[in-house]
């Protein structure tokens, strides 16, 4: 088999190499050497959720841990995995029968791994408490010595096998109510563009994953992003204005949720390698259509980027790895690493990137908007435009002179709806603002309400309750 430039490999050697590769991130993270702050990432016996995404090639992620955890493998993975699959059929518009068929197929597959698993319909995201988006800001500060203690404990407990058998039983296929599906469908339909739809879907999925991990007691989320996928994601992120969040979106570990850390152990493998691995070792897989399945290249930014990268990769074989390595060199550009909860985007949970310098793309866009609207005060003379302190909120007030600081006062904005929208915008990062803008106005009552609920929690935290009473929620 010719996989890399380094030469040909036999099936067995290759299998060993893939497995060995899987240990790299493990050792990287299992020891205090690689840490994002002052805690160790993988504690032995910590529960780790593996989330199944819809992509078939990524399913080998499922079949690597079993080999790692199994006693035979000569190095043992010291954690207890669980599997989460989120059934997005409701958002994609699949009928009930197909959804049920897929889930039962997956059920079989998961059962054969011997790990506990959870199959959740995406509809559940609608019932999530607002607290999902309010991350517990303090990360558990485990001293490095805790690692050793945990290893001992893990070894004593006999490798955690009993945990697996215990939880095996509690799995069932939850029923979805039609009304919920309809609500989800409505929410998805409120996004006018496929770009926004895909963005929204991934946000919802992420919220549900984090919530599940939290409630089931998992401390890590393993995502199956391959390096091909990450290269696409990186370029998509840039195109969507998520430069500041790039490191979190594509890095090895993602701490934006505070108590649940998302990791991407498959990111060293290309999609091709994974596909070969799956084929060679007969890893079972299920093909599940996604939102952009069978759409033209220009249907959405995500779709366009994907086809751009794969086409360029065909002509310039180093494309994916170059993009991927560029991402390696970046970090999250937040002003303070321990950003307060209020500085985080309500949707994507990354730190806000909307407080910018005077000369920036965001300010330039705001000025353009202001200048293109009716009754825009045309400012003449130097230095007369003041930097708007909180970009989005301040803007709607500027036309009618100063109102109560940056607080939105009644009567300033033309309608409460607009008012609400401005309020929501101020809690979102640049890119999520763009997504929300692509949604039907008066729009996405569900999303707004869901978000506003948690926003209220946020504001209560900030003890500026006056605002809420004005909003009347």
């Amino acid at each position, binding site marked *: 088999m010719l996989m890399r430039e380094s030469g040909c490999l036999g099936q067995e050697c290759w299998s060993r190499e893939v497995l060995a590769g899987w240990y790299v991130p493990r050792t990287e993270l299992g020891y205090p050497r690689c840490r994002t702050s002052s805690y160790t990432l993988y504690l032995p016996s910590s529960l780790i959720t593996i989330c199944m995404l819809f992509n078939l090639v990524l399913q080998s992620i499922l079949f690597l841990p079993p080999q790692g955890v199994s006693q035979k493998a000569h190095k043992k993975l010291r954690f207890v995995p669980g599997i989460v699959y989120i059934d997005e059929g409701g958002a994609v518009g699949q009928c009930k029968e197909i959804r049920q068929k897929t889930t039962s197929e997956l059920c079989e597959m998961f059962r054969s791994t011997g790990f506990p698993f959870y199959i959740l319909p995406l509809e559940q995201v609608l019932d999530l408490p607002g607290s999902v988006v309010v991350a517990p800001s303090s990360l558990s500060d485990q001293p490095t010595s805790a690692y050793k203690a945990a290893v001992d404990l893990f070894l004593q407990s006999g490798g955690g096998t009993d945990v697996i058998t215990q939880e095996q039983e509690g799995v069932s296929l939850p029923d979805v109510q039609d009304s919920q599906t309809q609500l989800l469908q409505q929410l998805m339909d409120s996004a006018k563009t496929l770009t926004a739809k895909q963005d929204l879907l991934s946000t919802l999925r992420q919220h549900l994953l984090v919530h599940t991990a939290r409630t089931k007691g998992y401390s890590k989320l393993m995502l199956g992003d391959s390096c091909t996928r990450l290269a696409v994601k990186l370029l998509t992120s840039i195109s969507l204005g998520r430069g*500041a969040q790039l490191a979190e979106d594509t890095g090895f570990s993602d701490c934006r949720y505070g108590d649940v850390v998302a990791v991407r152990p498959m990111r060293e493998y290309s999609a091709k390698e994974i596909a070969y691995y799956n084929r060679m070792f007969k890893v079972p897989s299920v093909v599940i259509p996604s939102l952009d399945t069978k759409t033209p290249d220009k249907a959405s930014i995500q779709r366009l980027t994907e086809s751009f990268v794969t086409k360029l990769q065909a002509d310039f074989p180093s494309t994916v790895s170059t993009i991927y390595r*560029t991402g390696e060199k970046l970090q999250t550009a937040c002003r303070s690493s321990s950003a307060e909860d209020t500085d985080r985007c309500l949707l994507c949970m990354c730190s806000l990137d909307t407080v*910018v310098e005077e*000369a920036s793309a965001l300010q*330039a*866009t705001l000025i*353009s908007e202001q200048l*293109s609207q009716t009754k825009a005060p045309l400012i003449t*003379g130097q230095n007369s435009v003041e930097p708007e302190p909180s970009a989005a909120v301040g803007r709607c007030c500027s036309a009618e002179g100063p109102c109560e600081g940056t607080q939105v006062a009644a009567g300033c904005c033309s309608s409460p709806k607009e008012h609400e929208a401005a309020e929501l915008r101020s809690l979102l990062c640049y890119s999520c603002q763009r997504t929300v803008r692509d949604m039907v106005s008066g729009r996405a009552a569900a999303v707004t309400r869901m978000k506003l609920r948690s926003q209220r929690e946020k504001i209560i935290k900030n003890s500026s309750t006056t605002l809420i009473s004005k909003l009347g929620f």
Partner: protein
Amino acid sequence: MPVLCSSCSEKRAVLKRPKTGHSLCKECFFGAFEEEVHQTIVAAKLFKPGETVGVAASGGKDSTVLAHVMKLLNERHGYGLRLMLISVDEGITGYRDDSLETVKRNQQQYELPLKIVSYEELYGWTMDAIVRQVGLKNNCTFCGVFRRQALDRGAIMLKVDKICTGHNADDVAETVLMNVLRGDIARLRRCTAISTASEGDGVVPRCKPLKYAYEKEIVLYAYFKKLDYFSTECIYSPNAYRGHARTFLKDLESIRPSSIMDVIHSGENLSVREGVKMPVQGTCSRCGYISSQALCKSCVLLEGLNRGLPKLGIGKHHRLHEKILSQQPLTESEQRKLKSVDF
């Protein structure tokens, strides 16, 4: 029913702004466009009163609009700048000679002093001669590297304090994408800066007042203002790889027009991980120009041309820099590698 201008609500709109989606009439568009450039200049504190500013002029749409707007704003807002035009003559028959005629007409129209520096007088090579030697592959590398230095040399001759170039939002966004695709982290970090803060001999600070102006709007501005500009593509084929980034960006724009600003926003907010190795800026030991290597790129390129080994400056041949500096001959195998490919 005709669409009315979203700003004055009286006249018919003539365009839809890609940046915001608003429709504007001609007058409101002019006002908005000029005001935005002004805001950019003020917000980024690009100039100080009393400075001499060289406007890099190629005769194309961007630099013509830049020269026009700079002159207009300088008078309208009293920047107190002395403006000059600087042009580079690459020596491309059938392209640059024609566009320079446009620049000369602009000089008359705007009543600004003009300085033309040519590759021939600076390097002894015209682009025509270079293409004859290297062919149509990599010729843009020569042109780009030489132009950068030529502008600086022209600026020094004119004793200007700053150069402003006509780079627009599309150019900046495209460069962000390019640098990601090429993995050039040092440039990725620099490329979104609106002005270079380089101190060093022979380097004049540069800025891009049109950084946030969409290419589309610049074209429309030039068109509606009936500006005299030259709109022919360079006859030597454009950089192929950049073409991919360009196509991608245009496709992005067609899906979501704000994409270009979004990409710039991304670029502005990227931050490089600590500990990533960055090239250290030094000076060229031959000509004294800024360089991260012992020899600057244009000296290497020039050396290659003069030795008949055009590929010397294409790709990385840092090991050979010592040899070039000490005037040693290259070995035969080295020479073979660096000769131009025959078609």
